[in-house]
């Protein structure tokens, strides 16, 4: 019963934030919302299906580059077109990649996804004429709701219309994911995670369900990747690098992979903690590595696990 109240308070806080908080903190919320979308998808694979991808940055890269190519080369500036295009591009790539990867589990799944991610990274880096090489490409400011927002400075645009647009996308993505994990399909995924043999003998096609989960999480990463690009105005190959894949798995673990809202908390904690640490100490990786080691060893339930009194339990999802 307390969850809806907490959600309402949080929702209100997020809505009024641009009106009360300094623009700097509001712009930090933008990557949070983009990563929020990405991690909701990643956790369908990690937390609900039990597959750890070390190449998920591939789809973030696809989403971000789709946005950059559309705005700079093809003259498509409407975000309402860019996001579906990013989702489609991610799905088109994820279909064959996923079909190959889901035949394996555990370390082999992780290695295969890592290899696919690095193929795309190398492609971005080496095919200079198409992708701009290591300098990447510019992502022009997209139109929102059909409007150009010409009168807005960059910051006004980001903390105003773009903020609310991202928020709307995140809320929509959350609601859809909530329905997915609560559906019979979501229950099948959990069964597969806990006991693939039993799932198969109960008539659940393990490979097919894993493939669906892979596709959905790739689409989420594509959309999140496209959301990630406009605030920086630039996309580059590091978006698809394997350490980026590692970082997003880290975020999920930080928040707690066995809870529905854990990944969102993880994205939030990661981004604001990174900002805080970097402002006092340039070597944020040292601190974050130690945090990750601590979580793995002592608190595998993540932040959500620390809040929960009992050991992390399943979100019922319904």
């Amino acid at each position, binding site marked *: 019963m307390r969850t809806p109240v907490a959600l309402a308070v949080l929702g209100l806080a997020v809505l009024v934030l641009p009106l009360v908080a300094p623009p700097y903190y509001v712009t930090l919320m933008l990557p949070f919302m983009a990563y929020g979308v990405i991690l909701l998808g990643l956790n369908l694979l990690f937390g609900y299906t039990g597959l750890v991808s070390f190449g998920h940055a591939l789809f973030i890269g696809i989403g971000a580059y789709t946005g950059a190519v559309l705005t700079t080369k093809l003259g498509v500036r409407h975000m309402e077109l860019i996001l579906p295009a990013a989702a489609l591009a991610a799905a088109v790539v994820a279909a064959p990649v996923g079909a190959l990867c889901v035949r394996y589990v555990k370390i*082999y799944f992780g290695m295969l996804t890592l290899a696919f991610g690095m193929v795309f990274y190398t492609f971005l880096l080496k095919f200079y004429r198409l992708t701009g090489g290591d300098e990447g490409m510019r992502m022009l400011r997209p139109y929102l709701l059909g409007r150009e927002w010409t009168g807005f400075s960059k910051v006004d645009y980001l903390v105003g219309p773009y903020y609310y647009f991202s928020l709307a996308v995140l809320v929509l993505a959350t609601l859809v994911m909530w329905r997915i994990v609560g559906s019979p399909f979501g229950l099948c995924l959990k069964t597969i995670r806990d006991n693939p043999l039993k799932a198969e003998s109960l008539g659940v096609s393990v490979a097919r369900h894993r493939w669906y989960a892979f596709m959905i999480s790739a689409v989420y990463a594509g959309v999140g990747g496209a959301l990630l690009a406009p605030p920086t105005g630039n996309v580059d190959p590091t978006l698809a690098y394997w350490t980026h894949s*590692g970082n997003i798995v880290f975020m999920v*673990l930080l928040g707690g992979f066995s809870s529905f809202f854990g990944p969102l908390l993880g994205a939030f904690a990661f981004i604001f903690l990174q900002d805080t640490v970097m402002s006092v100490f340039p070597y944020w990786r040292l601190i974050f590595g130690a945090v*990750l080691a601590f979580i793995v060893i002592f608190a595998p339930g993540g932040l959500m696990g620390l809040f929960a009194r009992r050991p992390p339990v399943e979100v019922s999802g319904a």
Partner: protein
Amino acid sequence: MGGVFHAAILFLVAAGLQVVFGVQKIFNLACGSFYALGAYTGVSAVGYFTGHGGPPALFIVPLVAGGLAVGLVGILVERGLLRFVYDRDETFQLLLTFALVLMLEDLVRMTWGTAPVSTGGLYLIYGQARVLGATVPVYNLIVIGASLAIALGIGWLLTRTAFGRIIRAAADNREMAEALGVDMRWVYVRVFTLGTMLGTLGGALVIPATAAMSEMGIELIVEAFAVVVIGGLGSMRGAFVGALVVGVLRSVAISAYPELEMLLIYLIVIAVLIWRPRGLFGAAVA
């Protein structure tokens, strides 16, 4: 020949990865970080040596000593971190080594700064030789020879010594080895330190030929990863053959189709994972 030199270095790092995976079943993402650590330590050791009047021709002594000595951090890592997660899901083990990658990368930056460092003009101090019609620095030949010797040494260790028998037994069946009176904690410390030292030595040996950079670790790990996938996880012969395949293919691709360089390697990795996930020499013992 540049490819064979690269293969010799890759073999060392990949061998470290394999021995740890074979016995401890942990895929150590930090093996590239150990490589970077060895490289930076090598530069510092050589700098100290020549700065204190050591004859430049003997630079290889502090280089190797530094590379091996810093490998002892393996003890710290194993006792301080890894021993807590042996019973955990391999996802958590993988993430713990990823935590190490993050920490070591910044430790290197903190200690040695962000600018590349190198040993200066020591690379060609032994002159050059003509091999099969190509001009090759003699230093490359030394490293290739050393790497071959280490490969043979590991083979000898695994097949002919009591410790090697214990390692193979532990790789096959940990519980049984433990029941027969093998102190697994001790085996794990030694195996992990051996793996770490192979990585740091590889880093130290590469350094006269190239500058040390803070990203070198995370870049090498994906190559070492390609080596062990092609060769087969946990197999020493696999590491040897895989390193040759990756090292030579890369140098051929760089000169023939620069754009395909690593792309080609990853495509081979994917092909191997799909057609023969065990790799060329998979399912063998460490």
